[in-house]
């Protein structure tokens, strides 16, 4: 079976396959043995080449990589004793957005994640991480519980966007997102958001208006998908790589624009090759973030949260000549 590979990874994946093939042979010929040695020598060089100097489009591709860890991967490992909050009590549960109360370093924490699903059956069930209005209303309920229990809220964002469907529109997708943003902006407890894969416009920002917003090195966070942008600008979705460049959607660009609080590093080769190390980086970032904001009193916290968004004009005026 051919492994999944994006264009820019092709050379590397082919090398890997060839190395694996040779390794699987029980009695290697002299020639093959030499070849394997040679291949292994160049492998590390190609690996480095492939994952250094990634373009914004490459990062979008990595953000969407089918093997990339999804929200539940991190949630299940970072938090103990997860108790799930199911549904908004007006509609059946939306599995594309999961909510829990759990324990982080021995302390109760509210957790939400937009979950794409780990395999194709799961993905179907979870609508490929595209929430319905009831998903956002469930998240609002989680925020209300967090407020009542006075516990911090951690969110994991990984969505191509809110679900664009008939049912979603009929149930008021726009209002659900507006209310989700509103509640997140005014919730009286510390909040931390991680964009771990796709940060697709309105559907993503609904869970990302936190006291601390982090984007993973190979995640993206964008006002529109590169394809959507290319289709409007160039009438050609295939020019998405150019659009990805224009949109300044990488963690690096967003941090330079001061639109996020930090970048979570991924090891060379990205999260899908190094999930545990990426997890550790998130863990470290989260611990530090909570330490920074947990001691603040609510009034100060909200004031700073609002100023972060309101004051983007200062930064912008500095950036535009």
């Amino acid at each position: 079976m051919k492994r999944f590979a994006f264009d820019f990874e092709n050379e590397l994946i082919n090398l890997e396959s060839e190395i694996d093939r040779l390794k699987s042979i029980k009695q290697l010929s002299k020639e093959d043995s030499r070849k394997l040695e040679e291949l292994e020598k160049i492998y590390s060089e190609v690996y480095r080449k492939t994952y250094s100097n990634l373009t914004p489009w490459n990062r979008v591709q990595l953000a969407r990589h089918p093997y990339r860890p999804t929200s539940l991967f991190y949630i299940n490992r970072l938090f103990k004793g997860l108790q799930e909050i199911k549904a908004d009590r007006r509609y059946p549960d939306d599995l594309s957005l999961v909510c829990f109360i759990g324990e982080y370093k021995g302390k109760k924490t509210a957790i939400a994640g937009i979950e794409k699903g780990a395999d194709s059956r799961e993905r179907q069930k979870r609508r490929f991480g595209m929430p319905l209005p009831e998903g956002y209303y469930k998240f609002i309920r989680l925020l209300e519980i967090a407020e009542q229990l006075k516990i911090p809220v951690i969110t994991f964002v990984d969505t191509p966007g809110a679900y664009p469907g008939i049912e979603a529109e009929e149930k008021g997708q726009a209002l659900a997102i507006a209310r989700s943003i509103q509640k997140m902006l005014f919730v009286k407890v510390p909040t931390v958001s991680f964009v771990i894969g796709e940060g697709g416009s309105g559907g993503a920002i609904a869970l990302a208006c936190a006291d601390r917003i982090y984007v993973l090195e190979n995640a993206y966070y964008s006002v529109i998908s590169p394809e959507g942008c290319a289709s409007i600008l160039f009438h050609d979705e295939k020019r998405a790589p150019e659009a990805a460049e224009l949109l300044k959607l990488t963690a690096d660009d967003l941090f330079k624009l001061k639109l996020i609080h930090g970048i979570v590093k991924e090891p060379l080769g990205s999260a899908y090759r190094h999930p545990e190390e990426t997890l550790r980086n998130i863990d470290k970032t989260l611990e530090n973030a909570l330490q920074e904001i947990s001691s603040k009193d609510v009034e100060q916290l909200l004031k700073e949260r609002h100023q972060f968004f309101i004051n983007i004009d200062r930064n912008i005026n500095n950036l535009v000549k």
Partner: protein
Amino acid sequence: MNDRIKTNLKEDILWLKCSNCKEFIFKRIFEENLKVCPICGFHYRIGAYERIEMTFDDGIRGFKSLFEDIVSKDILGFTTSEPYSLTLEKNREKSGVKEAVIVGTGKVKGYEIAAIIFDFNFMGGSMGFGVGERIIRIFNYASQKKLPVFAFIASGGARMQEGMVSLYQMPRTIIAVEKFKEETRLPYVSIFLNPTTGGVLASFAYLADYIAAEPNALIGFAGPRVIEKTIGRKLPERFQRSEFLLEKGLIDKIVRRNEIRDFVSWWCRS
């Protein structure tokens, strides 16, 4: 139903053909009827200043436009066949407004109000930094001057040329709405015009106390083409139209254009 209809009609003709009912209508009657077809009632799209002219007591003269100097800039260096700054210039010329939204104050039936009026002719009423900032400023201003706020929305959503700065106008304007609500007991009312979609709908616009819409306006989070592509089939005719939203419980009322002055002034009364 045809959304994109010719409203910038040549000066020298007396008769127009309604693109909705296909009937010929006398141009002067059409203008007097606030650009609503006198035969089928189709509400044609109008610019921000046309809206101001027909809504405020002394029309444009009775309206004080505020924060005119706040406009979007090319933050990202967004250049395709032309730089974004040139796109902005071209749109200013084309639409006659400096940004996709006009904010200001004026009287309606004797009541002073603060107003947010989108102009769809300016880059599809898209919300970038200029639009968001103007909205924030007018909410703060209304709060200080104790004026009710009326938002006339017509927007395709966030403006992609400013990237995530545009998306961040969603939380920014929502903060402004909530501060206004915290500081005053005055009404904030939205009127959705054709079309209202995306990030504008999903932020400050939908958080009004009361929501009305002009007839047959396209209103939705996702655009119909995106939905059709996702679900792989055609959408029903009336889907995402004002009447559909009213039926689904998503808005409170449909107001015809000639009722808007009454509607606005009603909310201003004690």
